[in-house]
C-alpha cells in the first residue's frame, strides 16, 4: 500500500505552500470544486452500511434497556493504546475503530477527577477496579488541583449556582484538533514538525517556555502512540492518505485517538466534508470510486461518530442532558475568495440523516451565508423539515474573524482550525445575580451571604416603596463587576490545572505550537434578566420580603415590554448588560494570555438554573426554567416569530464572540401548505435572520401535538430528534423535566 512516497501521493494536487508548511486551508482552497447543483445525485445506503446501521440500532435499544450505559470497562484507564482493536461486524466495516474493544463500551477516564469517575461508574452499577483506585491514590487529578487552589469566595459562587457547570471535575473539551492534518500529511511529517517547534524553544527558560516544551513532548509521544493505535487496525498512518478511504480513515483515527485520551464535554470534529470531497471527487474521476462507495464511506464514518461514548454522572446529565458528545461538523459556508465551500460531500454528509435514520450526532452545523447556492439552501430546509437535526450559524459574521477554515466547537463556539483553541468556562446565572444584588449579596433561597456584604434593595427604592430602575441598575452593575473578577480568576485556576493534569496531547498535536487561546465565559438567563429590569423600569415593582427580611417575591403593577417583541425599550437593556459584562470580564487577565470571549448559551442548564433561582421581578416563579440560550422567555412573544428573531439578532456578536444561541420551534404548517413553499420559506427566514445580524438558529420543525404524544409515550418515538440548545438529542432520552421544558417553549 505504501509504495508511493509523499511527493507521488501529492502529485495530482495543486498548490505549493501547503506542501512545505502545514496548511490544510491552502490545500483545500487550491483543490476543492464548489457544487451548486441539487441533491438528485445522492444514493441510498450500501448493503454493508444497512447491515451495520441495523446492528447499531439494536445496540441502541439495548443501551437504553441497560439504563443508558451499554457496557463500561472500569478496570483500566482508557487512553490511546489502552484497548485492543474493536469491531462491530468486521466484514462490513469500511471505516474502523472504537474507543474500547467493543462498540458502545465506555472507558474510564479519571484524569478530570477520580470522584466523578467513581460516581459515574457506580450510577450504572459498576465499580472502579482496584488497580485504578490504587494508581489514582498517588495521582493528582485536575479536580484535586483545582480544589487545592480555589478561594472560599469562588467555592461559594459555585455552590450556590451563580457560576455552575464549570469544568473543574470533568474534561473541559471545546478543543478541536485539526484532524485532517493526519490525512493530508501523515504522522511522520507532523512528528518532524512538532520536534522542530520544540527545538525552536531554546534560550532563557521562562515558565511558559518550559510548559510548552513539556507539552510539545507530550504531543510527540501521543502522535507516536496514535501510529501504534492505527497499527492495531492494520493501518500504517506514517505517510499521507493516498485515497478517499484512507483520508477518511486517517482523519477518523486522529479523532478517535482524541476521544480515547480525553473525555471533554464537547469533542467536536471541525470541518471535514469539503476536505474529504477533494479525495472523493479525485477517486471518482480516476474511476476507483463510485457514488455508492463514496456515500458508503461517509455513512460509515458518520456511523462511527454516532458511536462515540463517554462516562458521565447523573449530575452532569442535568446540565448536558441526553448524553451528547457534540461531534460538531461545520458544513458549507463561503470561501474568502467568494466561491462557495459547499461541495457534493456537504450533501453526502447531510444525507446520512436519511441513510442512517435521524440522529442527534454528529451535530451538523450549516454555516449559512446569503450567497450559498440556492439549491443547497433548499436542501438544508428540506433536511430541517424532515429531521429537525440541523443548526445554522452565520458564516457572513464569522468568516471575517476566523477566516474560511474555522470549525464550531460544541454548539456555537467558532475557532480557526489548528490555530485557535478554547478554554471552556460554562456560564453564570445572571438572573440570580440580580436577586443577590437586591438582597445585599444574600442568596434569596437560603439567606446565605454569597457576595460580600453590600447595600440591599432598601437603598434602591423610590419614595413610594417601588424599585428605582436607575438605582437598581447602578448596584447591579457593581455586582457584575465583582462576579466578573471572580469568574475570570476561577477560570484561570481551572485551566491552569487542566493544562497541568489533564492536558489534551492528541488534540493539541493537531494545532500549531503557537496557538491562540480563547477563554469562553457565558451568561445564562439573559431574557429573564432583561424582562425583570424592564419590569422595574416600566412598571411599578414592590419587593416582598419574608420574616428574615429576604426579598422573596415582587408585586408588579402595570405593563412592561418584554424581550422577543423587537421592542428597543427592553431589547436595549439586554444589549447593554451584555456589553457591560463583556467589558467587565476584560478587566481581569486570563491564564496564558487567552482572549476573553462570551456566549449566551445554556446547553440544558436553563432547567437547573431555574431550579436554583427564586421568583424574579418579570413574573417568572421560583424553580421555573429559564429560556434556553438567548431565547426570549417562553410565550412572551406577542408579534410572532420574526419579531422574536429580531430581538435576539440585536444582541451583538462583537461582545459575544463565543456565540449567541437561539432555539426555534415552529410547526411546519406555520410556514405554508405545500412542501415546496415550506422549504423556500425556511430558506427566506434564515436569509432574513442572518442578514439582520442573527448568529445562530436551531430549527425545530415539529407539531406541538406530536411532541406532546412523544412526551407521554417516549418509547414509541425512539428516533424523534429535537434541537435543544446548540445541539440535538433524542427526545425520549431527556428527563421528564427537560421534556416538559421543551414543550413549554414558544411554538410558532
Amino acid at each position, binding site marked *: 500500500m505504501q509504495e508511493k512516497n509523499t511527493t507521488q501521493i501529492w502529485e495530482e494536487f495543486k498548490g505549493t505552500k501547503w506542501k512545505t508548511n502545514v496548511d490544510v486551508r491552502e490545500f483545500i482552497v487550491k483543490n476543492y470544486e464548489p457544487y451548486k447543483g441539487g441533491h438528485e445525485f445522492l444514493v441510498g445506503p450500501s448493503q454493508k452500511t444497512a447491515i451495520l446501521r441495523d446492528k447499531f440500532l439494536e445496540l441502541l435499544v439495548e443501551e437504553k434497556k441497560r439504563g443508558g450505559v451499554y457496557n463500561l470497562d472500569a478496570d483500566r484507564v482508557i487512553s490511546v493504546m489502552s484497548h485492543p482493536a474493536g469491531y462491530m461486524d468486521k466484514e462490513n466495516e469500511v471505516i474502523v475503530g472504537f474507543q474500547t474493544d467493543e462498540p458502545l463500551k465506555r472507558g474510564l477516564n479519571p484524569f478530570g477527577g477520580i470522584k466523578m469517575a467513581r460516581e459515574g461508574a457506580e450510577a450504572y452499577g459498576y465499580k472502579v477496579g482496584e488497580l485504578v483506585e490504587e494508581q489514582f491514590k498517588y495521582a493528582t487529578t485536575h479536580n484535586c488541583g483545582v480544589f487545592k487552589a480555589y478561594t472560599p469566595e469562588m467555592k461559594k459562587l459555585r455552590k450556590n449556582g451563580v457560576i455552575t457547570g464549570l469544568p473543574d471535575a470533568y474534561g473541559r473539551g471545546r478543543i478541536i484538533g485539526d484532524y485532517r492534518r493526519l490525512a493530508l500529511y501523515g504522522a511522520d511529517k507532523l512528528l518532524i514538525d512538532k520536534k522542530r517547534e520544540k527545538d525552536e524553544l531554546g534560550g532563557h527558560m521562562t515558565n511558559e517556555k518550559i510548559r510548552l516544551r513539556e507539552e510539545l513532548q507530550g504531543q510527540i509521544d501521543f502522535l507516536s502512540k496514535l501510529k501504534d493505535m492505527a497499527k492495531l487496525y492494520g493501518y500504517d498512518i506514517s505517510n499521507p492518505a493516498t485515497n478517499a478511504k484512507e483520508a477518511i480513515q486517517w482523519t477518523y483515527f486522529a479523532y478517535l485517538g482524541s476521544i480515547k485520551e480525553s473525555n471533554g464535554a464537547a469533542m467536536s470534529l471541525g470541518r471535514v466534508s469539503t476536505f474529504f470531497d477533494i479525495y472523493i471527487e479525485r477517486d471518482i474521476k480516476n474511476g476507483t470510486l463510485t457514488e455508492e462507495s463514496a456515500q458508503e464511506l461517509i455513512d460509515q464514518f458518520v456511523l462511527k461518530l454516532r458511536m462515540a461514548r463517554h462516562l458521565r454522572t447523573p449530575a452532569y446529565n442535568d446540565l448536558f442532558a441526553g448524553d451528547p458528545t457534540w461531534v460538531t461538523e461545520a458544513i458549507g459556508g463561503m470561501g474568502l475568495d467568494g466561491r462557495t465551500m459547499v461541495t457534493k460531500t456537504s450533501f453526502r454528509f447531510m444525507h446520512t440523516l436519511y441513510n442512517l435514520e435521524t440522529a442527534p450526532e454528529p451535530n451538523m452545523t450549516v454555516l449559512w451565508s446569503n450567497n450559498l447556492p440556492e439549491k443547497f439552501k433548499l436542501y438544508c430546509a428540506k433536511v430541517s423539515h424532515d429531521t429537525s437535526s440541523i443548526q445554522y450559524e452565520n458564516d457572513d459574521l464569522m468568516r471575517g474573524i476566523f477566516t474560511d477554515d474555522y470549525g464550531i466547537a460544541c454548539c456555537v463556539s467558532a475557532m480557526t482550525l489548528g490555530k485557535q483553541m478554547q478554554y471552556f468556562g460554562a456560564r453564570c446565572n445572571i438572573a440570580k445575580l440580580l436577586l443577590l444584588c437586591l438582597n445585599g449579596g444574600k442568596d434569596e433561597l437560603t439567606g446565605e451571604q454569597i457576595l460580600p456584604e453590600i447595600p440591599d434593595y432598601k437603598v434602591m427604592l423610590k419614595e413610594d416603596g417601588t424599585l428605582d430602575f436607575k438605582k437598581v441598575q447602578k448596584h447591579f452593575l457593581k455586582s457584575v463587576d465583582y462576579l466578573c473578577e471572580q469568574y475570570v480568576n476561577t477560570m484561570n485556576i481551572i485551566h491552569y490545572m487542566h493544562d497541568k493534569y489533564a492536558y489534551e496531547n492528541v488534540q493539541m498535536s493537531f494545532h500549531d505550537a503557537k496557538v491562540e487561546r480563547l477563554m469562553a465565559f457565558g451568561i445564562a438567563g439573559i431574557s429573564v434578566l432583561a424582562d425583570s429590569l424592564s419590569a422595574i423600569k416600566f412598571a411599578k415593582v414592590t419587593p416582598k420580603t419574608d420574616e428574615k427580611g429576604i426579598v422573596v417575591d415582587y408585586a408588579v403593577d402595570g405593563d412592561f415590554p418584554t424581550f422577543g417583541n423587537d421592542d428597543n425599550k427592553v431589547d436595549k437593556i439586554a444589549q447593554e448588560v451584555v456589553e457591560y459584562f463583556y467589558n467587565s470580564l476584560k478587566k481581569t487577565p486570563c491564564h496564558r494570555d487567552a482572549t476573553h470571549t462570551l456566549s449566551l448559551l445554556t446547553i440544558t442548564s436553563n432547567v437547573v438554573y431555574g431550579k436554583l433561582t427564586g421568583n424574579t421581578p418579570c413574573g417568572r416563579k421560583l424553580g421555573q426554567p429559564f429560556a434556553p440560550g438567548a431565547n426570549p422567555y417562553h410565550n412572551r412573544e406577542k408579534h410572532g416569530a420574526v*419579531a422574536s428573531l429580531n430581538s435576539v439578532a440585536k444582541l451583538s456578536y462583537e461582545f459575544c464572540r463565543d456565540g449567541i444561541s437561539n432555539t426555534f420551534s415552529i410547526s411546519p404548517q406555520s410556514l405554508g401548505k405545500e412542501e415546496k413553499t415550506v422549504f423556500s420559506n425556511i430558506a427566506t427566514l434564515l436569509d432574513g435572520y442572518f442578514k439582520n445580524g442573527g448568529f445562530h438558529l436551531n430549527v425545530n420543525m415539529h407539531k406541538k401535538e406530536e411532541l406532546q404524544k412523544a412526551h407521554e409515550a417516549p418509547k414509541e418515538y425512539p428516533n424523534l430528534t429535537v434541537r435543544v440548545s446548540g445541539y440535538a438529542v433524542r427526545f425520549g432520552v431527556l428527563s421528564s423535566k427537560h421534556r416538559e421544558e421543551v414543550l413549554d417553549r414558544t411554538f410558532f
Partner: protein
Amino acid sequence: MKIRIHSFETLGAHDGPGLRTVVFFQGCPIKCLYCHNPDMICTKGGKEYSINEVVEFCEKFRVYHGEDGGITLSGGEPLMQAEGALKLIRALKKEGFHVCIDTSGAVKLSDTVKEVLNEVDIVLFDIKHTDADKYFELTSQPITNMIAMLEYLKTTQKAFYARQVIVPTLTDSIEQVKKFKELAKGAERVELLPYHTLGVNKWQKLGMEYKLKNIPSATQELMKKLNLV
C-alpha cells in the same frame, strides 16, 4: 390620521405569496359563526397607530420578505377603515413593499374602497358562502356587497386569490365547492382553507356564545376530496 390595529403577526405564510408581515385591523362588519378572531370584531378594541408607526414597524421585517413576500392587511375587516387603509397602502407602496389585502368583501363598494383595491398588489378575497340565504345565516349580512366587490375585481382584472373556509356541514358539500369555484373564475388562485377549532377559546374568553361548538375541524381527507372538485 390614525388606524385602529388589533395586532401584528410577523411570520405570515398563509396570507399571500412568500413570508409576510400581517397587520390585523380592528373591527369587522360581519359576524361569522366560525370567526377565529372574534376579538377583532368590535370596532372599539385594539390600539390606535399612526400610518408612520405602522410603516416603521413593517420596515423592521422587510429583510424577511425575500423576493415574493411583503405586507398583508387583514383583520377584522381592513376595508372598514378604508381611508386609513388607503393611506397606509400608499405609504407602504412608496417604500417599495408588496401589499396584499385580505377582505370578505362585506363593505360597500365606495370610491375609497375601489381605490384600495386598485392600489394593492393582490386581493385575498374571502367568499364565505355562495348561497345568499346561507351567506346571511353564516355572516348575518346580505351577500350583495360581496358580489358587487367580486364583480369589480373581475371587471378591473385585478389579481385576486379566492378563498373559502371549509366548515363541516356548512360549506363542505361538493356542490357548494363547485359553485364557489364557478364564482371564483378569474382568480389567480383558488384556496380552500380548512376550518379549525383553535378560535373557540377566544369566544369563551369574550363571554360570547359559540354556535358551532359541536362541529369538528375539517379533516385532511375532506380537504383532499374537495381540492379535487
